[in-house]
């Protein structure tokens, strides 16, 4: 059961990573990078590392995304490529 769950999470994480790199809109890219961090934190719980999971959930998917969004707000309209 646990390996199946881990496989599903890894697939979600990789799809989120591809979306973060390849999607046209920068906003969706940033949100997908946050999704990658969130799934990574669940993977850490399965790999018996609750400390790392808490850090990743608070920092990777919370604060890092907020910092990206603050910078994106300053760079309006120029989000092609």
């Amino acid at each position: 059961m646990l390996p199946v769950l881990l496989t599903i999470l890894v697939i979600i994480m990789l799809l989120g990573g591809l979306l973060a790199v390849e999607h046209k809109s920068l906003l969706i890219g940033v949100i997908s990078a946050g999704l990658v961090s969130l799934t990574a934190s669940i993977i850490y719980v399965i790999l018996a590392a609750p400390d790392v999971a808490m850090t990743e959930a608070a920092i990777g998917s919370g604060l890092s995304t907020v910092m990206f969004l603050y910078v994106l707000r300053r760079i309006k309209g120029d989000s092609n490529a």
Partner: protein
Amino acid sequence: MLKKLFALILIGGLGLIFFQLYNQRSRREGLTKTASYYTEKGPAETRSANIVTSVVVTYRGLDTLGEVTILFAAASIIGFFLKRSEKGSKDKTIRNQSSELLQTGSMLLVPLIFLLGIYVFVNGHLSPGGGFQGGAIIASGTVLAFLANPSFEGGRTLIHILESLSGMFYVGIGVAGIFLAAGFLDNRIFPTGNVGSFISAGAIPVIYSIIGLKVGAELSAILYSLRDTKEQQ
């Protein structure tokens, strides 16, 4: 396209190297020598139930000091590059006043989030969590305060005071370990108790609280600088 082809070739080569390393890695059944020392002696020596905490705070405490220094350097660089906008242009930033419901809710939630952060780093030696996690939770409470009230200004001096004081106390407790116990950042300068009770791990909760305050203050300072950058002309 040549550039993408080059990137693909590079990634393929890296993948080959990774696969070789993975194949050659010896399959181990137990822990390595260092790890088994930490897990065997850790609870007995530091009296901390969380072995990761004892590694981060005591055995590898010097690394954590360096890490906190890196965070301080990053916060200083960002504060140096992003100067605050002038006081006169303040009315531009409150063009989107947030709603009554969000403001009232955040007034209820922000102190609770700060309390949760403090709980997490005070209990770092008993349960998962610790200074870094608690500091990050405190910084996310700051984010909620910013989002609910775009012209929020409270705590700016408190952040600077906390930054300086916690760094000073961290090094001070480390030096006290040299004189009162076995070495720099030794946690046995305070009395220790049984593994699992709240007052058990000597100086570990104190050091981790200082780290938590330091991390929370640095991250909040970075967020303050990012929020206060000048609008694009």
